[in-house]
């Protein structure tokens, strides 16, 4: 069976969920060979093996943290040369897309980004993508070379599929470009204790209607009652009420959770682009004419400062 390279997104050996989803998709096309780089790379093998990785190619070097993107491209290319895979899958993070693009160029292949599904086809893997603020669904293939495909979080279920997960050291020679862009300082984000926005099963967002940073705890309390991530509309972020890393929409994150709860968000195209593919959509808004209500499975026309605390209290009561 053909091998499929899967680029592993991990933090000091802790594998992030989108990589496990990639293994599910990779198994539809062939047998997954994972590539884990940097500090803690070998620690990823156990969990990758449990989810179907037959092999885990690892390489640790300071370059991966000290320089931007290119060392990882060099390593993924080394793995490509070693394995000659049928496809290369990479998580669709900002960095993942850059790594994938540069690899595709080097190996003379086409690239597909932000796939939301993947299946085997007669002429190679077929990716499903969303286009034009998710108003269209396209089926896309790579026509030249080995398909390089980046896949968005929440595109597949994480499935247990025990495989060997045998660790092999990958030999990597860094290119002349590898040290071109130096990372001179790194400030880790403070952990909120909430799930990562793009990976969360439930997202609770606030918009203009939240009317101030001091009111966002109302949104956070609802999120915490559901174990959800917190999102914000561009209006709320531009006003400085919530960090840009939490922005949902065209210029922020695009999310596709099981449940999306929009509070005080009108639903402009810029926002819809980032949440329209959510499975179930719920909105609370004072304005009965807000376009967000065209998308909802359930909507409440009302003041979010009445509705949201009542909802939070009810959820906490039912849990208790």
């Amino acid at each position: 069976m053909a091998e499929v390279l899967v680029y592993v997104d991990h933090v000091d050996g802790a594998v992030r969920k989108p990589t496990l989803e990639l293994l599910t998709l990779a198994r539809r096309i062939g047998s997954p060979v994972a590539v884990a780089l940097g500090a803690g790379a070998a620690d990823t093998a156990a969990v990758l093996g449990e989810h179907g990785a037959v092999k885990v190619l690892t390489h640790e070097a300071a370059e991966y943290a000290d320089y931007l993107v290119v060392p990882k491209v060099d390593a993924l290319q080394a793995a490509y040369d070693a394995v000659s895979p049928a496809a290369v899958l990479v998580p669709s993070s900002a960095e993942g897309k850059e790594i994938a693009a540069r690899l595709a160029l080097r190996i003379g292949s086409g690239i597909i980004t932000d796939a939301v599904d993947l299946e085997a086809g007669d002429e190679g893997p077929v990716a499903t993508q969303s286009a034009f603020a998710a108003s269209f669904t396209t089926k896309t293939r790579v026509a030249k070379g080995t398909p390089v495909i980046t896949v968005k979080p929440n595109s597949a279920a994480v499935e247990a599929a025990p495989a060997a997960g045998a660790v092999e050291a990958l030999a990597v020679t860094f290119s002349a470009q590898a040290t071109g862009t130096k990372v001179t300082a790194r400030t880790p984000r403070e952990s909120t204790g909430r799930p990562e926005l793009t990976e969360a099963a439930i997202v609770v967002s606030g918009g203009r209607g939240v009317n101030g940073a001091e009111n966002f705890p109302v949104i956070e309390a609802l999120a915490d009652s559901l174990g959800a991530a917190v999102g914000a509309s561009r209006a709320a972020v531009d006003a400085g009420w919530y960090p840009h890393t939490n922005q949902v929409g065209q210029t922020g994150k695009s999310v596709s959770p099981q449940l999306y709860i929009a509070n005080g968000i009108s639903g402009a195209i810029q926002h819809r682009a980032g949440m329209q593919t959510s499975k179930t959509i719920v909105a609370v808004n004072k304005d009965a004419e807000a376009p967000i209500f065209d998308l909802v499975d359930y909507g409440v026309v009302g003041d979010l400062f009445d509705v949201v605390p009542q909802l939070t209290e009810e959820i906490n009561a039912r849990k208790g």
Partner: protein
Amino acid sequence: MSLRIVVTVKYVPDATGDRHFADDLTVDRDDVDGLLSELDEYAVEQALQIADEADDAEITVLTVGPEDAKDALRKALSMGADKAIHVEDDDLHGTDAIGTSLVLAKAIEKAGYDLVISGMASTDGTMGVVPALLAERLGVPQVTLLSEVSVEDGVVRGRRDGDSASEQLEASLPAVVSVTDQSGEARYPSFKGIMAAKKKPVEAWDLSDLDLEAEEVGLAGAYSVVDSATERPARTAGTIVKDEGEGGKQLAEFLAGQKFI
């Protein structure tokens, strides 16, 4: 010596319009008004600010696109860029990101550059890979997705806000930079800027000017193919209730019914 800045821009269908695919599954550019991609305005803005700080700088805006794409160049010129290059050729229709990066890289090399500045992504394709592809093709450092950028003594520095960390980056020129919508609000063209833009030079290049063959680009040369495009079915109308004191409880009931609680 003059700092040569090339800003790559894209002419895209207005995102607030009713965007569609054409019969050949390329982006339909006829039925929706086009404009300079909003995310490229931030690139033009940062170029202008970097040029202001430099002793001597020249900003060239570069686009690859159909006839109408001149509008995007005109907008960038009216914001304050010095000159423009429009790569236009019928054979470019349907060119994908890999092909676009080839055409842009050839044009950037022909124009001459110290610094390339791009937006973080286009608002139509939204791939966000062209800046990385340009760096790979040009063989220069990639300093991308910056929410803060500065250039001093031949070194570009900036802040990249990632998912798990915020990084300070540094590279020597020449380099390819991309900036996010957090880099600073783009200026509106002044009346004076709009008038001045009419006199600024716009060079027109085609594939032969760049020593490129038709089969290297366009739909035929594309590295990826779209097999089908289906309009997403409208979401079925949901239940909408008016809050009369029990809205939160009603919503909780709905969520419980859907097994979210």
